């Protein structure tokens, strides 16, 4: 299965990818800016994400919140998101409204600053602080991402600091920071625009050139410091977090090959063998057979620079102590590290991944987002069509080589959440344990 792809550059450096599909009158617009929390300076944590919020506060020809209103009025859906390496903005609209979505994106890429005010910045700072309270501070295990970044990356590594940011740093963000960040990173030569769905390519090229063509090229962005890290931590890392949670939960991380490399696909399959769905090792062994865990999974961060991180995520049953949880997970990892995997496990993982890949491409928004991703990280949107093949060539031998290199004791970082005393009452525990 292949989706059609056309790629071109505007003179200002904007990389554009188009993928036509006329099965429904829907078009998706997706912009990736190659900037994320990794690009933040010291003392400015959370700024990339706060800036994403500001992009919905209007631009030269668009009033505050009007971007949302115009798209929803057109019958479209939209949002944005910020990650360590990138920030994306996306709309899915009825195809006769494609020009509107493109124009709105062009207006804020070309001319954001006239709309920026202190009042809007103050308001969005409050909104983001509430987002932090909601998603991080007042949510069990909500600090996982920032604690994990701190644990697995060395100090001053661009991936080491919090994505959502500290309250102090959010408080100190200024309009001058907004202007500088915009000028440095929100430039056509630092972005990829993808369009997927029901449109005519020639017409789309014309509209994209008209709207985005006049935006001047940027003056370059400061290079990221060296991000390469050795393949292993060197010795086991461990942090215990006493938190307002009900059940112990262990996130065990491994440094793993960067997203997009051949070894990445072996790591991704290893991650699926370990923790994708209920037939995976961790689920079968710890949840089903030994019944020490309530839930188990594994995932990769999919970082394209420096090193990726693979994480096993296991939540204890109420009667399982944190120490026991760690022992049990260590034992499983030791086992897979010592003995490797069998063919059936690799086949299961690849079959599941393949179905997910194909099913996800049903949505125009997903197509556009993946085109942007491959174009942003590798300059090659056509990699979207090679994913199934790259997984299919992963063999047991490659997975075992990856596991042997990466799952050893010298490459494990354990982040252990432990219920704070007083969180569990004895009667509740007894009730739960009595029926287990």
């Amino acid at each position, binding site marked *: 299965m292949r989706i059609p792809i056309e790629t071109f550059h505007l003179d200002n450096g904007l990389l554009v990818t188009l993928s036509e599909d006329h099965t429904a009158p829907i078009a998706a617009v997706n912009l990736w800016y190659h900037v994320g929390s990794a690009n933040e300076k010291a003392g400015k944590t959370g700024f990339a994400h706060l800036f994403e919020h500001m992009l919905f506060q209007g631009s030269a020809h668009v009033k505050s919140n009007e971007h949302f209103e115009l798209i929803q009025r057109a019958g479209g859906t939209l949002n944005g998101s910020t990650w360590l390496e990138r920030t994306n903005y996306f709309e899915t609209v009825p195809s006769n409204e494609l020009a509107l979505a493109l124009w709105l994106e062009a207006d804020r890429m070309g001319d954001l600053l006239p709309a920026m005010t202190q009042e809007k910045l103050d308001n969005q700072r409050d909104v983001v602080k*509430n987002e932090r309270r909601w998603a991080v501070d007042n949510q069990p295990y909500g600090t996982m991402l920032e604690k994990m970044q701190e644990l697995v990356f060395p100090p001053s590594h661009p991936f080491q600091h919090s994505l959502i940011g500290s309250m102090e740093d959010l408080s100190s963000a200024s309009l001058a920071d907004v202007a500088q960040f915009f000028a440095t990173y929100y430039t056509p030569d630092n972005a990829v625009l993808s369009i997927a769905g029901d449109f005519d390519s020639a017409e789309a090229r014309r509209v994209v050139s008209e709207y985005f063509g006049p935006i001047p090229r940027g003056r370059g962005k400061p290079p990221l410091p060296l991000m390469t890290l050795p393949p292993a931590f060197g010795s086991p890392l461990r942090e215990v977090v006493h938190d307002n949670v009900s059940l112990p939960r262990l996130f065990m991380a491994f440094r793993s090959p960067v997203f997009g490399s051949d070894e990445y696909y072996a790591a991704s399959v290893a991650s699926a063998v370990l923790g994708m769905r209920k037939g995976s090792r961790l689920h079968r062994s710890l949840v089903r057979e030994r019944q020490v865990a309530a839930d188990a999974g594994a995932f990769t961060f999919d970082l394209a620079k420096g090193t990726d991180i693979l994480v096993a995520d296991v939540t204890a049953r109420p009667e399982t102590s944190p120490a026991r949880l760690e022992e049990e997970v260590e034992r499983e990892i030791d086992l897979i590290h010592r003995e490797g995997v069998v063919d059936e496990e690799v086949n299961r993982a690849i079959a599941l991944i393949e179905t997910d890949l194909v099913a996800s491409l049903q949505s125009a928004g997903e197509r556009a987002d993946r085109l942007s991703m491959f174009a942003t990280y590798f300059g090659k949107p056509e990699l979207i069509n090679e994913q199934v093949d790259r997984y299919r060539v992963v063999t047991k031998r490659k997975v075992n080589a990856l596991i042997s290199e990466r799952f050893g004791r010298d490459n494990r970082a354990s982040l252990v959440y432990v219920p704070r005393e007083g969180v569990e009452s004895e009667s509740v525990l007894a009730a739960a344990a009595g029926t287990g």
Partner: protein
Amino acid sequence: MVTALRPKSGQPRSYHFPEFHDETLPSGIRLVTATVTKLPVVTVLVVVDAGSTNDPPGKEGIAALTAGTILEGTERLDGAELTERFELLGTSIESGADWDSSFVKITTLSDRMEEATQLLGEVISNPVFPEREVERLKAERLAEILQLETEPRGLADEKFSEFLYQQDSRYSKPDEGSMESVSALSRKDVQEFFGTRYRAGATSVIVVGDISTENARALINRAFQNWLPGAAPDQPLVAKARSTRKSVHVVDKPDAPQSELRVGHVGLPRKHPDFFPALVMNAVLGGLFGSRINLNLREEHGYTYGASSFYDWRRGPGPFVVSTAVQSEVTAPALREIFSEIERIRVEKISEEELSLARDYLDGVFPIRYETTGAIASALATLVIYDLPEDYYDSYRKNIRGVSVDTVLGAAKSHLHPDELQTVVVGDARVIRDSVADLKVGDVHVHTP
């Protein structure tokens, strides 16, 4: 510079909800099929009239436990083997129960569809419900209940239902059961529930994707042979409000940085004649980013990351609720704004601009909702579960466009009841209690979770 000239809308291309075929198979099972050939993917969704509202009193959680344990083994294969068979085919099987039905679902590449469907039929025709797996899934549910004590969003939802409905209403208790009810469930309960409700006449199989109706029919006829005939018994539902007087329930979470707020009352059943006006009214009030409640609480005041209102549509009258999380210090002012927005939409007509935003959004977004086989299958399940007319999706957009400023006002007047609003706050009682009491939105009761 980018042109100041805003583009005009192009000529819209027509769109039809995928054509579907609806029939009753010789076994008595209903089969709904829609052929969608965009990608080589098929979703098979089995829907059984066996929702949580069918849990017998004292056995709350049995529908969910039955749906979970159904995947845990047949006479031929145990749960681990079944899981592995499905996953080697690249599909994973999911099951669960909601208020009005239970479901089992697979999504598979079309070339593996035949094997996967055969296996699916085997799983739900001959489950053996091993004792060990029943007990394991109970223990996992108990772990989930424990998790809720430290998870403010889920806790707020659950407490809201508890304070909203009369104690003898199934809706007042968690859909998957409480610590007490789940602890008492047994394998025998599961077998009984399955035998009573998983009947051919209560079962619909929905097949959507890259497959013809003929092939789907042949596959389903073969895979679902062994079903008990007959329908599931009707069961009356109690869904009365616990109180028609305003009250406030604070679930104390000392030092919580935010208050989770739920404000609402008993809403409307899914098949209500005012469904469309109520849907549009809610979109204006709190159903969109640009709705009154979100613009007020988030964009104007910065109290929250987001605020919304919704009807939880069920066969019976589910909750109507405004839901948000605000910084603890602004709990009382945020509640004041919520109450005032609910009041305002009942007394003044909304503007034509507000109406058109909500209406054009709901009308325009329609095709975007049905891009995937999974989404189309869910939409068809909605028809089945709520017994909606066959042309429901074909007339949906016309019905949305037919809503006016006056019918919105009518819906707000008839169906919003400010005097009956129940408020649940999961937050730090010490910080918020007095200021919330001063609002006079009902007596304040403080609870420990």
